């Protein structure tokens, strides 16, 4: 990336393009031990336990999340990029505090993004 590009210096862990490329390589190379994918698997189980304790799902649902995560070969994963039109979320974009950022570069989150507010795109299909 050229040094005058606006994303120059953005660390890989918070650069959507590099995260995408890394996940894409993990899926196409069938890297079953990819740390990022493994973390996603764990996180989905963690969220299932949270939803269970909030009574938003039942025992069967949570157990099925665990079974699904265990059964899914890495080829089932599909890295996507969310394209989020800014206008609809303008007031809900939060700057991530410096101590939670990968570098001095700005990072943002939208904690309550809704399904209808973005398009999921798959720039390079893995199959």
């Amino acid at each position, binding site marked *: 990336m050229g040094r005058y590009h606006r994303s120059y210096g953005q660390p890989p862990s918070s650069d959507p393009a590099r995260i995408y490329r890394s996940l894409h390589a993990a899926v196409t190379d069938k890297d079953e031990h990819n740390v990022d994918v493994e973390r996603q698997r764990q996180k989905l189980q963690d969220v299932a336990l949270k939803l269970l304790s909030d009574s938003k799902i039942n025992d069967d649902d949570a157990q099925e999340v*665990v079974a*699904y995560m265990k059964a899914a070969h890495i080829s089932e994963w599909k890295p996507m990029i969310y394209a989020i039109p800014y206008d609809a979320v303008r007031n809900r974009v939060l700057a991530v505090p410096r101590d939670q950022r990968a570098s001095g570069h700005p990072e943002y989150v939208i904690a309550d993004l809704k399904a209808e507010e973005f398009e999921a795109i798959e720039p390079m299909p893995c199959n």
Partner: protein
Amino acid sequence: MQLSSLTRHDEKTAKAILAAAALAHDSTPYYSEYADRYKSEVRELMAEAESVLHIAPGSDQYDEVMRSFLSKQVETAIMGDSDPAEVRRRLGRQGRLPLSGYEIDFSKSFVKESRENEKYIRRAIASATDFQHVFASSLPDVGKGMTLIMIPQMLRKVEHWLLVDAIRENDKLLVDRSFRVFPSIVDLRTANAPLEVLRAFVDHYGLPFSLENMAPAKMYEQLLFAKSEGQLDVKLPDAGTEYDVTVTGSSFSFKEDVANRLGVPMVGCTVIAAYGVDVAKYRRDRAKLIG
């Protein structure tokens, strides 16, 4: 392992604390804020985990070891006493397992009839772009199901689809038939889903046959009937060609009161799909195009 920092809470709170600990370091503020709700409980839980694991914050591989430990705890908290294999079978029955999660095997008739290599079919299934689980519409939870898998192929510069017909039973797929579907021969203009492709294929290569004395047809779909015990009655007209009839369905016993009313021993049958193929015609086209 039972952690004492959790066992002193009721089950629901213990699960919430464990989820909070597992999500505490997530970069999404929504989850880290959730973890803040149980700040002191999470701290206590982490201290106990560090003691069990003999690691201290900041030590080598702390994050990795702790994450793996918490992940196992989360899994145990969710699964409880339930049998993971049974949960997997349930997902499989409902067609909700990822395709790679099904165990693949081959029926005896596939091995006998098919000219396809099993390894090749396994590899093709692993790269499948499209599949469809078909259920018995009247009794979707009863017995076996049908799974159709489509994989784009290019052989001898001929683009076509490999269509695999498998019997789904719990978390297993028993590959029963596979066909090469050539768009230059089979009219696929209105076929999108795998079942529609199978219908188009049977429309071209099918031969009528009769199932249980029903009017002859190339393909039957979604039947529910009672019959006397024993094999399904399949009648093939003498067409002077090689027939291959495939039936996917199940039989089931009636409840005692229904069985008593029937008076004679009968079973219920669901047929998801049954179709007959003119094998000679199909093999001729296959040989002509891809050898």
